[in-house]
Each structure stands twice: as C-alpha cells, then as structure tokens.
C-alpha cells in the first residue's frame, strides 16, 4: 500500500473533525450573537457604555472589553489605588490595534477577533484531544466546549478564546517536535493571560523526553514573555509590578492564605453581590470535572495545570470570575466529555449559554 493511501483515512478523519468543529462553532456562536442582539434591542443597558450602545452586538464589547480597548487606543496608565488598565495584558490590545488599522471599529474588531480565535481554539483543542484520547471523545469535547455556558466569554471582546487557541496550539506543536513554534505560541498566550504559563506543566514530560535545549526553551518561553511585560511596564510606567498593583484596586491581592480569605469572605461577598454564588458553583463544577477528566484517562500533568488555573485565582482572596478563568483549562472539557448522555448535556449547556448571555448586562463574566 502506498504512503498516500495510508494517509488518506487520517486526512478524512481530520477533515471530518474540522467540519464538526466548524459546525459547532457556528451553532454555538449563533446562539450567543443572536441572544446579544436581542438583549441589545429589548434588554437592560445599565452597564453598557456609549460606544457599546452604538453597536447591535455592543453587549459583547462591554465590561473588561472597554479596558482592553483603552489600552489599545491610549496605552497603559497606572492610577495608584484605583482601577486602571495595567491589570490587562497586552496581546489582545495589540491585535485590536492591528484590526483597527485594517479598518475595523474598536468594538467590532474585538468581537470579531474573539470569535475567530474561538474557531481556531476549537480546531486546535480537537486536535489535542484526539491525540490524547480518540476521535469520538474529541468530538464530544468540542461539542460541549462550543456550547459551554461560561463560554459566552469566548465571544466577548476578551482574550480567553485566543488564549485557549494558543495553549492548545502550543502543546500540539510541542507534541509534534516543533518546539520553536510551541515557544512562540505559549509566549504569545502568556502576553494575553498569565495562566498560559501553567500549560508548561504538560510540556515538561515532553521536554524531558526530547532532551533538547530548544524544548526547555519552550518551557521557559511563557516566563520570559511575562518578564518582557514587566520590563515594558518598568520602562513606560516606572513600575515593573504595575500589573499586580493595578489588580489590587479590584480587591485582588495574592497571599498564601488567599483561599481561606476568599472562603471567609463569602457571606460578605454574598451580601454585596449575590452573583458570587455563580462563581462558587463554577469553582465546584470545575474541580468535579477535573476529577472526572482524571478518571477518563487525562494525563496527570493536564489535571495539575487545570487545578492551578482554577484554584490559584482564589488565592487573590476572591471567587469572582472563576467561571471565566476556568475556561482556560482544557482538562475541564475532557471531564465534561466523560459525562454520560453528552447530547443531553449539550442541550442543557446550550440553554444555559443563552441565559448567561442574557444576564451579561447585570453581571460581569
């Protein structure tokens, strides 16, 4: 049999997975965009700003999207003791600037960027899952990722979809021994969200096996990127830690007892904003799904990375936005794919996705 004939089924399988990912991306995003348009037409607008109200999908550019636009338009400005934009990492604003240079508006560019990145994330996540599990499991995981309720954030002008694509792409590249590409993708991911650095945990066994300097360079790349951001903040704002100082104005301060602080502060957090229940529920759900993923055969390194992505933010003393942070842990979706009756799960998740988008004007994701 020729090599071409041997490759043909693999190609067909990959093409089918690609089509599957494309279909679920289109279906899931249609739900999100249609709901956002309906909310824009008839829903509350309390927290949307003027530039967002001028856009039918402006709801998707609200909340942190405004901060990313501020960085893209005007650069970083640290305001000690107040909420300011160095808390937001630079890759998404850099790409926003590129999209704007191509003629797109700031809000439209952010939304388009996020949604196209999510398509790339689904394809690369499918590829990664197929390599670690099998074809059927990969399809289930892609389907559930596409309609996951907290995944509404993948359509907002936020960097989460981009980061998931870069994490999955970086590890897939490393598994194929393309270490320089892996280094570039993971470094880029870290410049969008620092959690990308946890993707180096599954990379360590691969680097050890490869025994090449470039492989260890890829493991170090996210930390080098993090250093470059600190260097940039030092050069422009004279404060290399401006990122963490700005985070404090959001009530986030990392301490060893941060998780205990977060738990002890739940009654007070609930009294000021009952939505914290949502974040705690997602926190518990993510941990349960990581346990399921482990039972389904996910490598321990991925479970450890996922656990760090989910648990570490709580050491800042708050459960807020855990629903969004957990989206960057691929193992969560492997746990979801291990649940029985995946189509029923997908249907329920799809309904909750619509509810999540509809409640976006009330609470940040």
């Amino acid at each position, binding site marked *: 049999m020729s090599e071409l004939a041997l490759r043909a089924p693999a190609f067909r399988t990959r093409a089918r997975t690609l089509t599957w990912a494309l279909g679920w991306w289109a279906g899931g995003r249609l739900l999100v965009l249609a709901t956002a348009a309906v909310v824009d037409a008839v829903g509350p607008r309390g927290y949307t700003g003027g530039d967002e109200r001028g856009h039918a999908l402006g709801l998707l550019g609200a909340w942190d999207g405004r901060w990313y636009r501020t960085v893209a338009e005007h650069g970083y400005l640290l305001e000690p003791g107040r909420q300011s934009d160095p808390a937001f990492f630079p890759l998404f604003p*850099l790409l926003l600037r590129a999209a704007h240079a191509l003629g797109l508006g700031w809000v439209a560019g952010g939304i388009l960027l996020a949604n196209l990145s999510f398509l790339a994330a689904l394809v690369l996540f499918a590829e990664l899952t197929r390599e670690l599990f099998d074809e059927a499991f990969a399809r289930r995981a892609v389907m559930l990722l596409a309609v996951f309720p907290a995944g509404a954030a993948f359509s907002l002008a936020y960097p989460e979809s981009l980061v998931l694509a870069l994490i999955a792409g970086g590890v897939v590249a490393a598994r194929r021994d393309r270490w320089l590409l892996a280094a570039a993708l993971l*470094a880029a991911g870290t410049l969008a969200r620092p959690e990308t650095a946890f993707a180096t945990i599954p990379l360590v066994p691969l680097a050890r096996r490869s025994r090449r300097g470039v492989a*260890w*360079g890829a493991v*170090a790349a996210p*930390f*080098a*990127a993090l250093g470059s951001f600190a260097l940039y903040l030092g050069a422009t704002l004279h404060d290399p830690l401006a990122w963490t100082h700005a985070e404090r104005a959001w009530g986030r301060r990392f301490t060893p007892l941060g998780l205990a602080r977060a738990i002890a502060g739940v009654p007070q957090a609930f009294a000021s904003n009952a939505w914290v229940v949502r974040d705690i529920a997602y926190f518990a759900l993510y941990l349960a799904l990581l346990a399921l993923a482990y039972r389904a055969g996910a490598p321990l390194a991925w479970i450890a990375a996922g656990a760090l992505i989910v648990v570490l933010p709580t050491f800042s003393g708050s459960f807020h936005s855990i629903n969004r942070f957990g989206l960057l842990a691929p193992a969560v979706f492997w746990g979801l794919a291990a649940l029985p009756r995946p189509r029923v799960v997908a249907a329920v998740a799809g309904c909750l996705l619509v509810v999540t988008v509809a409640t976006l004007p009330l609470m940040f994701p």
Partner: protein
Amino acid sequence: MRVVGLAALVAAGVAACAFAVQWAALPDAGNGNVAAARAAVWLGRYRETRAELTLGGRRLGATCYHGWIDGRRGRDRRGTALLLSNGDAIRALPPHSLLFTGIKPARPVAALEAAGCTKVLGDRLAELAQFAGTVRARRTRFDGTPALAVAFPHLTLYVARRTDIPVGVDTFRIAGRFRFVRPSPRAGAS
C-alpha cells in the same frame, strides 16, 4: 551545558522579541493623562481645600471638606461638604445624593470640582485620565506661576508644572483655584 545554553537563548530571544513588539506597537499615554492621574493621587492625600470660585460671574471664597459630615436628619455620613462665603452650602453624599443650603447652583457637581473637593475631583480626574482619550498637556501660567493646562471635554485642569499638584479647574463656566489645607492621616502611608 549545551542544552541549558540553548534553552536560555530561546528564552532570551522570546523576551527580547516580546518586549520589542510591546515597545513598538503600544501607544504611550498622553502627558495630560499622566498629569491628571498624578493630580488624582495628590487629591487622594488630602481632605480639605480652600478655594476661590467664580460662579455665575461672582467671586466667592469656599472651603471644601471630605470626611464625616452632617447627612440627612442630622446623622453623620461620609461625604463632601462645600461651604461658600455667602453662606450657601452643597453636601455630596455617596452614591448619588446632593443636599443644598441656600440657592441651588445650576451645576453643583461642577462647583464641587472647581473648588478642588478632593474626593469628587479626584474620582473625576481618575476617570478622565483613563477613559477620556489621549490628552496632551499645554504649558501655561496659572495665578502667575508656571503650570500645565490639561483640557478634557468640559473640564480643564491646571497643575503646578514640576509636581503635578492640582491648583485650579475650569468646568462648565465655573472657574476655581484652590490649595490643600492639611494632609489626611493616609498621606504618610501613600
């Protein structure tokens, strides 16, 4: 050793490229935005100002205080009180209440800002610095001393040239010059 060297080379290359991209592609904040942000920091260190306002063509002396003030029904509340030399007063109680003694001015919040009320003006400047777009500072003289003028939409801020200490505000046809009275206890900590 070769493995470590190559790994370090890759990491250094990544750091250098990432820094270069950020340096080349991200804009710098305007010097007016920076001056306003620094002025907001100064305002956060004080709680009382003495001001001279030009309100509706009249010149009035004013004192503005942020802290515990008389609220509704005689209860003490955290807020801002502006006392004018003609006996009128404006009290701002968070989140959105304004109480008046005497004649209600057309734009009470603008009067609080022009008088340099530390909390009110500090919050406003912080928001303008972050979200009002890139603003350049212009060299000028204010009250006979060198100053920078930062013109945001509907509000022009004057700061001392080297220190960025706020000295005056011009907003909605209310002009004010002010000076801080005494530092708050937090001043030493910040």
